[in-house]
């Protein structure tokens, strides 16, 4: 069965600094990969997804992620973090009928 590992439980970055959140997955075929963000008391919002094609995908709010099959990774990046990016970030591997989420990475943004 597929699984997702997010090695970093908590990351703190300064506002304006770059960000990279790590995600490693295990899946037998070409995976459907997702990054979601969850603000306190809110549901999950999709940032971006990868199904096939270009391995660098652009998402909302200035986020991007790169699919690296050789490393089984799908890391999320943002060049300049804003205070409003503070939230919990979840990586997930699909398909929808068997979606598995990582444990999440909590992002704190320092002023």
């Amino acid at each position, binding site marked *: 069965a597929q699984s997702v590992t997010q090695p970093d439980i908590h990351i703190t970055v300064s506002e304006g600094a770059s960000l990279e959140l790590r995600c490693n997955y295990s899946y037998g075929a070409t995976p*459907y990969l997702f990054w979601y963000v969850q603000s306190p008391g809110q*549901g999950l*919002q999709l940032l971006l997804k990868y199904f096939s094609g270009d391995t660098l995908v652009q998402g909302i709010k200035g986020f991007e992620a790169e699919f690296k099959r050789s490393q089984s990774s799908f890391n999320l990046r943002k060049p300049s973090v804003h205070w409003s990016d503070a939230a919990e970030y979840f990586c997930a591997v699909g398909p929808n009928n*068997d*979606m598995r989420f990582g444990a999440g990475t909590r992002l704190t943004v320092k002023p």
Partner: protein
Amino acid sequence: EAGVAQSPRYKIIEKRQSVAFWCNPISGHATLYWYQQILGQGPKLLIQFQNNGVVDDSQLPKDRFSAERLKGVDSTLKIQPAKLEDSAVYLCASSLGTYGGEQYFGPGTRLTVT
């Protein structure tokens, strides 16, 4: 476009009591999901419906949890009797398709079992 609606937002019950959660998906979305999110963990899929049929309920603790989607639109998830370890946020999501595509999540119901 209205999003996924869930109610109640918060619920506190004592162990061995029963509780029900309601979800109304985005109009036209055939697929509906219920997830359990325990504090500090990612969401775990409990059950998936395609219209009013169950696609997957392999992770649903069927001795105490039940779910239905009678008319292929809104859905209810019930726990009876509740245990302390059922304390979690219960998220409902919907999507157009079963296999790929984006899932849209509701705000969740936070359940506390005392």
